[in-house]
């Protein structure tokens, strides 16, 4: 593969003058046996911009996004002056690949006012004059490398030295990881470690839901049921025993109807006897009460009437009226009771009512005189009527009571018929015992029911627990499955680590071998500069022939730069891509002889070498002496003023076979 030509339009210092894009030729086919292209120019003239233009052409914004730096300053100034909104820029790289000739064109538009790109840059790939059917980015991917890996083919020798000096291990690690895709393996490792954590979290979450003692609880409850069932059996046995006892008491297992009838009669007799006893007592009391009924009723009437009237005032006339009312009423309804007005007392059959009642009547007489006569009379008569009703009720009771005497007599007669013998007394005892047994049996049956209800409750709880246990068993199976996956993931992690180690070992052995050989072919002091060794911890060491590492003080910057280029060379060779090398300042600070051998080594790959060199420093008459026969083309890059202040770069292609003198005026 050969980079043939680069055309730049408004990219960095390359400004289009008179519609002619600056062109940089890298390869002349008539000198195809020579594979070195030189771009000569002092620092800041646009050499590095050539490398950047190639990378932007391939990768666009994936390379870098600093459009502001890329767009030519002069073109922006002119656009502003003209009032143009945008500046168009482009880079075109022509490539020869076997019999095919490709043009890769990258186009960009930059908004001058807003200082931002107008749109995404475009890429076109033209093969032998026809646009390729393949996606241009796919084309780049197929023939070249990802952008980050292109730095091992297109790089600045001075930069790699500076970066290395800033942080040795990190720089080496970054390069190695980047170049062999170990970053991806590291990602695999860290991701698998996280996946293992996720599985652990999953197990923990399920475990926290499992109670763990469900099986024991079921067992405990089953044992409880067993005990309760045994208790039921025990109770049933006891009931059976009671049944047997009952049968012992009565052949048929229960008293006969005659025996029960006898028992009932006895009970009824006892009950009636007791009732008669109580009734007799009451009757006696009631008879006493009845004998004084009329007085008591009167007393009752007077007391109630007094309650109604005692607070009312009266005159003498009213008092006499009231006396007349009471007197007429008493005489009319209770003929046996007389009212003695002179003595102000009630007399019944010549017997005087007690002083308390007399006092009450007197109060009544005084009070009933108050108000209207008709009212007193009405109240008095109302209570008389009520007393009559009470008297009737009592008479009814007495009548009923007299009936009980008759009932008692009937029972006694029946008992006399049955006869109260010793045998009958035993039957009564047996019946009592029988009933006691019945009560006990009833209690036991109640206990059984209670226990059986409890058993049903526990069985229901056990069913729930069994459901829970089933769920827990499912969860345990799930945990088992997750743990199996975790184990697999751990194995995958282990394999990834082993792969990483194996691959790193393989890579380091290859890179160390290539780089060491490269180094020994450049620095002839092979006793001291014998090998490059990068260990798995990314330590970069230069070793002597005896295996001892060189101390830092024993390595000058030129030799360190060669070592790092050897390392880069080892990496690029490992990538096994046939791509031209584009190297900035490859010979700067190299000792005489080293520069020549470095180029020889790079040339051995057979790939095109595009070298940017500083005249007077890297590129001198001496350099030309050994480099001249290999030069395919030499471009001299100048800068000049455009207008009053802006500098622009331009390229002059010189005779490759002639040493060009350093012309200070040109710079």
């Amino acid at each position, binding site marked *: 593969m050969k980079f043939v030509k680069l055309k730049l339009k408004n990219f960095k210092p390359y400004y289009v003058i008179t519609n002619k894009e600056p062109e940089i030729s890298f390869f002349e086919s008539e000198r195809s046996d020579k594979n070195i292209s030189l771009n000569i120019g002092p620092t800041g003239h646009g050499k590095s911009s050539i490398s950047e233009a190639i990378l932007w052409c391939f990768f666009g914004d994936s390379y870098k996004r600093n459009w502001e730096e890329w767009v030519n300053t002069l073109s922006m100034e002119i656009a502003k002056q003209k009032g143009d909104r945008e500046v168009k820029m482009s880079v075109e790289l022509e490539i020869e690949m076997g019999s095919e000739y490709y043009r890769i064109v990258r186009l960009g538009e930059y908004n001058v006012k807003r200082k931002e790109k107008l749109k995404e840059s475009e890429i076109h790939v033209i093969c032998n004059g026809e646009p390729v059917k393949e996606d241009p980015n796919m084309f780049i991917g197929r023939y070249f490398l990802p952008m980050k890996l292109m730095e091992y083919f297109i790089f600045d020798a001075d930069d790699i030295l500076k970066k290395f000096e800033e942080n040795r291990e990190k720089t080496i690690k970054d390069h190695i990881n980047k170049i062999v*895709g170990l970053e*991806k393996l590291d990602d695999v490792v*860290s*991701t698998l470690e996280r996946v293992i954590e996720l599985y652990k979290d999953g197990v923990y979450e399920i475990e926290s839901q499992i109670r763990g003692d469900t099986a024991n609880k079921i067992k405990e409850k089953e044992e409880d049921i067993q005990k309760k069932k045994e208790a039921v059996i025990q109770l049933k046995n006891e009931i059976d025993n009671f049944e047997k006892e009952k049968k012992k008491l009565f052949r048929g297992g229960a008293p006969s109807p005659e025996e029960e009838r006898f028992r009932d009669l006895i009970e009824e007799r006892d009950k009636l006897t007791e009732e008669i006893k109580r009734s007799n007592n009451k009757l006696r009391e009631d008879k006493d009460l009845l004998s004084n009924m009329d007085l008591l009723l009167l007393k009752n009437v007077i007391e109630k009437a007094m309650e109604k009237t005692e607070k009312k005032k009266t005159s003498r006339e009213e008092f006499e009226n009231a006396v007349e009312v009471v007197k007429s009423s008493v005489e009319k309804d209770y003929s046996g009771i007389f009212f003695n007005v002179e003595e102000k007392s009630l007399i019944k059959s010549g017997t005087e009512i007690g002083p308390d009642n007399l006092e009450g009547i007197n109060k009544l007489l005084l009070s009933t005189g108050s108000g209207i006569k008709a009212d007193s009379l009405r109240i008095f008569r109302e209570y008389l009527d009520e007393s009559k009703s009470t008297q009737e009720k009592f008479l009814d009771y007495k009548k009923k009571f007299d009936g009980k005497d008759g009932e008692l007599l009937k029972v006694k007669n029946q008992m006399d018929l049955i006869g109260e013998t010793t045998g009958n007394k035993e039957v009564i005892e047996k019946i009592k015992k029988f009933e006691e047994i019945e009560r006990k049996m009833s209690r036991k049956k109640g206990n059984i029911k209670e226990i059986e209800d409890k058993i049903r409750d526990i069985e229901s709880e056990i069913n729930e627990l069994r459901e829970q246990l089933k769920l827990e068993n499912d969860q345990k199976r799930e945990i088992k499955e997750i743990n*199996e996956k975790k184990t*697999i993931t751990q194995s995958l992690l282990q394999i990834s680590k082993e792969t990483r180690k194996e691959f790193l070992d393989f890579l380091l052995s290859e890179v160390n071998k290539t780089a060491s050989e490269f180094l020994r072919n450049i620095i002839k002091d092979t006793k001291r500069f014998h090998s490059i060794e990068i260990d798995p911890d990314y330590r970069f060491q230069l070793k002597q022939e005896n295996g001892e590492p060189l101390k830092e003080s024993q390595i000058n910057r030129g030799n360190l730069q060669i070592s790092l280029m050897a390392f880069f060379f080892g990496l690029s060779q490992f990538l096994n891509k046939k791509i031209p090398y584009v190297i900035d300042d490859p010979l700067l600070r190299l000792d005489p002889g080293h520069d020549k051998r470095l180029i020889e080594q790079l040339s051995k790959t057979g790939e095109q070498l595009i070298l940017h060199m500083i005249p007077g420093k890297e590129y001198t008459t001496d350099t030309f002496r050994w480099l001249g026969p290999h030069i395919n083309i030499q471009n001299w890059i100048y800068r000049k003023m455009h207008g009053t202040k802006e500098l622009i770069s331009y390229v002059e292609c010189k005779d490759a076979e002639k040493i060009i003198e350093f012309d200070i005026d040109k710079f």
Partner: protein
Amino acid sequence: MMREEDKIIRTMKKECEKIDNDEYFEILHKIYRHIVEHENQPHEDRARSIKAIIDEEEGEGNNK
């Protein structure tokens, strides 16, 4: 031309062969491809995607 990923995958295969487990290689290969193809996926999302690959592969393995 052998891409660096291919070299890694080959080494991976060798490592799986050491323990005589082709299934592991298949899973690991898928994982690796996923990571290569989803370079910018956030770590946690990536872990979940990889877990899904393992779950799926393992699920298939169990169904075989």
